[in-house]
């Protein structure tokens, strides 16, 4: 599949060694993106969690057991599996910056993209969203409100990118050359330990570009060829090992 090369490539590096699994990123994402609260969150096939924190285990018994947390937004793949299968082009990767778009009015709800995404980053609105009386007054103007029957996913808070471009234009600056702190998604901004770092992977000055080059940085399911724009960082080998389906004799990058 032909992948477009963008001048700006928005990406993240998530430091697993700093993530305490607090879930602030998950809550901030819901508040920022008008995701309706759910009464029963037990069935994880029905919940809408654009950002989801997984608990990782090294599989060893106590006391050798080690634990880690992995926040998983949409990978904004360089070669997305989702947009190639969409029958109506409700999702594409065609905007400068490399964020995979998700257009709700065009989505027909066939969920082919959900089947294609290897990261389970996409979620389906089984029901119409329901806000408790009055809580709809806290709706953000960032994203449209989705009805039932459409798929949604993390957008790297794309609306904040739009706001940053508007502000740059107001100040007479180039909207395609934003400073590092002009645009940051809600999850990265709120993380209390600063585990989520965001920026332009193509700009060597940005922190993400430097961290992504580290030998401890890895991407999930890298060998599938999806070219994700979300990197993870861990100095623990067992964590890096969980990033892909390694055979017992295969080494991970940082070893």
């Amino acid at each position, binding site marked *: 599949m032909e992948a477009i090369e963008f001048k700006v490539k928005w990406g993240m590096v998530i430091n697993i060694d700093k993530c305490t699994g*607090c879930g602030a990123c998950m809550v901030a994402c819901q*508040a920022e993106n008008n995701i309706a*609260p759910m009464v029963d969150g037990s069935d994880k096939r029905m919940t809408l969690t654009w950002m989801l924190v997984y*608990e990782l285990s090294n599989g060893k018994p106590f*006391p050798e057991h*080690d634990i880690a*947390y992995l926040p998983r937004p949409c990978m904004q793949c360089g070669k997305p599996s989702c947009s190639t299968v969409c029958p109506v082009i409700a999702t594409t990767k065609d905007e400068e910056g490399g964020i995979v778009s998700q257009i709700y009015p065009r989505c027909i709800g066939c969920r082919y993209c959900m089947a294609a995404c290897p990261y389970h980053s996409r979620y389906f609105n089984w029901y119409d969203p329901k806000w408790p009386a009055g*809580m709809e007054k806290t709706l953000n103007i960032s994203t449209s409100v989705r009805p039932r029957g459409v798929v949604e996913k993390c957008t790297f808070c794309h609306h904040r990118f739009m706001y940053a471009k508007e502000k740059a234009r107001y100040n007479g600056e180039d909207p395609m050359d934003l400073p590092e702190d002009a645009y940051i998604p809600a999850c990265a*901004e709120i993380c209390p330990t600063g585990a989520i770092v965001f920026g332009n992977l193509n700009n060597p000055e940005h922190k993400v570009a430097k961290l992504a080059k580290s030998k401890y940085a890895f991407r999930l399911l890298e060998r599938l060829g999806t070219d994700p724009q979300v990197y993870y960082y861990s100095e623990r080998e067992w964590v890096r090992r969980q990033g892909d389906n390694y055979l017992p004799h295969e080494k991970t990058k940082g070893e």
Partner: protein
Amino acid sequence: MGLDRRGFITFLVGGAVGTLFTPVPWKLADDVSIWSQNWPWIPKLQYGARSEAPSLCKLCPGGCGLSVHKVGKRPVTAQGNKNHPLSQGGVCPLGSSAVQLLYRPARVKGPLKKNNGRFEAISWEEAAQIVADNLKGKKIAALSGDENGSASEVLAGFLKLLGSDDFYFMPSDAQVSQRAWSLMEGKGQLGFDLENSDYVLILGADILSSWGPVVRNQKAFASRKGKFVYAGPVQTGTAATVDKWMPVYPGQEGVLALGICYYLLKMGKSASLKNFGLVRDYILSKYTPSVVEAKTGVSAAQVQKLAQDLVKASAPCVLVGSDFGQGSGAFEWASGILVNLLLGTLNQKGGLVALPENKVITSAPWRSELNQKSFLKFLDEVEQGKAVDGLLVYEANPLYALPQPEQVKTVLEKIPFKVSFSTFLDETAMACDLILPAPHFLERFDDAYTPFGVGQEIYSVAAPVIEPIFSTKSTPDFILEVANKLGVDLGFASFEEVLQAKAESLGTDLESVSAEAYTSDKWLAQNSLSLPVEILATGLETEGEGVFLAPVARNYLGNTKQALTPFEVVVVKEFELQKKDFYIQVNKNTANKLKLKQNGKVKLQGAGGECVARVNITETVMNDVIAAPLGFGHQAWDEFAKGKGDNLFKVLSVKEEKGSGLKVWNRSQVKVVRA
């Protein structure tokens, strides 16, 4: 020529073909498709100017500064305030859901009075009169969950002027540390200068998940200069990120601390205590490595290594606290303080620091005095017949968040007049005679002075971000109104005046401190300290029968004041809660010993109550310990929290601590039977 059937049909065909040459079919198709995407029950966005307003989160005693994002007049999200020292741009999941809590279904919409078991609406004037009538000349008690706000100062001062000494805070490490420190003749409020330490040893307290000023702890950890080591029974969020996790049995952090002291003493370290010799001899003879190993589960070699690493560090900091933020005793704190004293880090950069106090209400006792009073002791006195005519409950939920809440309810039934100022319909409010709702913190003026656990004096004030949505009244303003009715003079006409006075007492003013938090680097010098040896005996007590329980507090499950918030529901993991069942966590070894199976239903039986749960087998818990989450089992609130799981507080066992007058419940043991 008439219109026959063929002509008519041709006419229709002509019409159909003609319609294709008009915009009708295309426009209709387009418009109908748009109509099908605009169901009237899907909310439309309300646009407006985007802005940010600073605020202060009062959902926990952490005191984080918030930056509330607004669209027009509506707050939409609560984010961290980059300029606030305790937030630095971060917020925990509770604070993050703060805006949506404005419309949580459990919100109390106006003053309510209980009439024959049902609540009916009354006016604020009526409420003030009823309260005044029921307080005049009576013996009143008050319970507050707001550890660091001036509202508690107003309430405490009011009670004192009514002739009552019965003002209590909800139990927490803030209180226990004060009790221990005061028994040691220490002055001021203890704090930890984590930001400047190069070796932080955390004994018990889950500082990166739920203990103290969590966000500030996480920020200090993120920018750390050295190592962080965490000793606790469960691999929580703190264990996932620190350099080393050391499994310790629940509630044994005090013994571990003394185990470290043993090695420090052997290395020749000393502390300037009046009775140092006595203390040293006691520890060296009683808290030998084998005793410590048996009690804590930590090997002697590991304890020795800890001591050596602490000595090697240039600015070590030992932070002791309860695994779940409450229930520990003066023993744990005194032991933890002692380690710091032996390392010489008291009032040193990166160490244990003593912070100043402040008050502006003359009649109110100092926070250090109020922190030493035990609400559980008070409940004992009431049970034994102490006459109490009324109880005022502010920002606290004792009928849920105290150990053995069912017994607490029975005792509180002896108090004939109870008022709750809760913003939400919590368990305590449901049992009170009056619910006089305080506004949500975003709707009111509030402040936080030096939250417990921080390493510097800090004062923050927040102005309201939105006009009150419902008929609520700021509790300190209401108290001042009632005080006026009773002819009691607290010296201020409004809460805003109190905040102004507080700011001025620190050398600033209300406007400046609302824009930027006030901080200072004042540490209180100490006179001679001493350590009553009888407190140290607690660690040698033999434990009872049953498996040790490690309660786990996590901010994404709510906390002692706030039930699981609407946005936190999806954060709860599938192995923590499934529909109505919550999960206890045991490792395979323990499960085999207790004959427990994955997903099996069990009953936890504690000294005062029992809990029903399911079993999850995970290696994140040490051997012979059952870990279980706090925060489930709500019987009030709304559909987001009610009826999910069971309340672990029911099975906590309470003991009397020798030498301190405190009650402790951090070493609960339970029996597990199949349900």
